């Protein structure tokens, strides 16, 4: 089953946000799914971790900074593997093929590079965890460099939020 859909998501706890929609679309189009998990440049996402690392760095204790970053990286990796496994199982349940790749860095560049590798992709679906984060994904840059339709998956704003 050819992978026509590219699902791009941020690594972490909500890697699979929006995946249920991707699954249904893939089934409707008789397509496999290529998942691209991107870790944006800022590896540290929690404010406390960033402040701790900064404090240790100021004190010259770079070893501790490295250890803190390594710990977070390991935690993220474990979460990613768990999420990917769950996504694979869900895809297999409805006979949809799934492949994935993990990268880190600029999201728009990662998507552009991936599309050069896999020319059979027909559309790019962005997880809500990317769609809402304008600082992480420069849509303008993406629009300049790709020619496939981009599908933004977003969750409606909660009433009263």
């Amino acid at each position, binding site marked *: 089953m*050819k992978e*026509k859909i590219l699902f791009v998501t941020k690594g972490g706890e909500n890697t699979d946000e*929006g995946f*249920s*929609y991707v*699954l*249904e*679309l893939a*089934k*409707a*189009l*008789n397509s496999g799914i290529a998942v691209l998990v991107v870790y944006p440049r800022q590896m540290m996402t929690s404010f406390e971790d960033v402040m701790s690392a900064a404090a240790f760095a100021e004190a010259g204790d770079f070893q501790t900074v490295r250890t803190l970053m390594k710990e977070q990286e390991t935690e993220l990796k474990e979460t990613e593997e768990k999420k990917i496994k769950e996504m694979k199982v869900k895809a297999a349940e409805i006979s949809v093929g799934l492949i994935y790749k993990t990268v880190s860095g600029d999201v728009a560049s990662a998507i552009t590079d991936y599309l050069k590798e896999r*020319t*059979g992709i*027909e*559309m790019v*679906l962005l997880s*809500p965890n990317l769609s809402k984060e304008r600082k992480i994904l420069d*849509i*303008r840059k*993406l*629009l*300049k460099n*790709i*020619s*496939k*339709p*981009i*599908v*933004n*998956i*977003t*969750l*409606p704003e909660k009433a009263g939020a």
Partner: protein
Amino acid sequence: MKLRILIADDEEITLKHLSYALGKEGYDIATANNGIEALKKIEGREFDLLIADIKMPGIDGITLLTEVKEKYPDVNVIIITGFGSIESAVNAMSKGATDYVTKPFNLDELTLKVKKIEEKKRLEKENVALKVTLQQSFPSSGKNAVAGFSFIAKSKVMRRVTDIITGIQNSDCNVLITGESGTGKGLVAKIIHYTSGRKELPFLAVNCAIFTEELLASELFGHEKGAFTGAVSAKQGLLEIADNGTLFLDEIAEMSPALQAKLLKVIEDREFIRVGGTRSIKVDVRFIAATNQNLNSIISGGRFREDLYYRLNVMDIFIPPLRERKEDITPLSRHFLEKHSKKTNKKITGFSEEAMDILTSYGFPGNVRELENIIERAVILEKTSLITPESLPQSIRLFQIETIDPNRIKTIDELNKDYAEKILEYAENNKSKAADLLGISRTSLWRILKK
């Protein structure tokens, strides 16, 4: 379909006489004075029928017959035998001759035999084309290609598409259809064929993305026996089978550069050689190609030949995505509801207002194919006489889906640059003149072009 006939006889007068008579019937005639010349000609190009005298210098008619049947079994052979020579007639038939005439023969009798062979060839070709057609299915519908089809085009943008299709009804031009995946490019290709002068002739399709380069070459051009491992017999390709008909090349952008070059040659010269073959085969095929990719950017990236693009793009048809023709969602939904309700024998007569609202406000990144799939699924799940929101996929109710097509969006700077470049070209690259025409300074022009 003009029958291609080779007449081999060492008697000049017989050659001239037969040439003239059969040429008047509209057949494509070639002649040879002896068996060796005849064999050379058959090796050089394709013939449907060989009429050979049994007695010729060099190699006689029977030896010629044996050679031809071994190498080119599809060629029919009529042997001209001597007076009273029943034995040689029987011998010829046992060696694979289709028919024989005895000298002195009646021209009308020979012409009748040729016409029978012509009819037989036509039926064989139709049969092959029908078999290939029945074996094919279009990815867009997943159904047998000979099934009926309906075309819903109520929106203004789609009426432009139907206007173009109507406009080219009497034309034989090649067509390039573009549009996102699931917009119905295959369906439009079929409609173009079945409303054209070629509608009684084969319509064949091939998806260029699903084959390797070698397999696609074999599929399109056919192959000779022994052309590669596994080629245990000669095989006609789609180009031969689609002769006088239409060949639909889906996902043309996936074709390798090497095959693109070969395809260009077929379009320009109207002939080709089978894989592993040496003889050129003439064909008259109308090409309809389709792609969901931006061919201009693929051409500038060097992955698609510009000359092939212009040969295929004699007429271009762009099918807009479903989100740009929302007026078609309601009639399309009703059409698919009727189709799938009949199939499942369910009495579902329509949609609840809420369900139709959900459908008309959804973006359908998968276009018409996705819509049909959603309706088909809803018909299976629905237990009432109306399709309700609960039968529609939960995710399209849960998420907001917005599709952006980069090919349709330009920034103001990009639009300005495009326009400035056009004016500069008009001004023959004279920047002062271009700046004057645009009413700006040279420096401003330079800044726009630099962006």
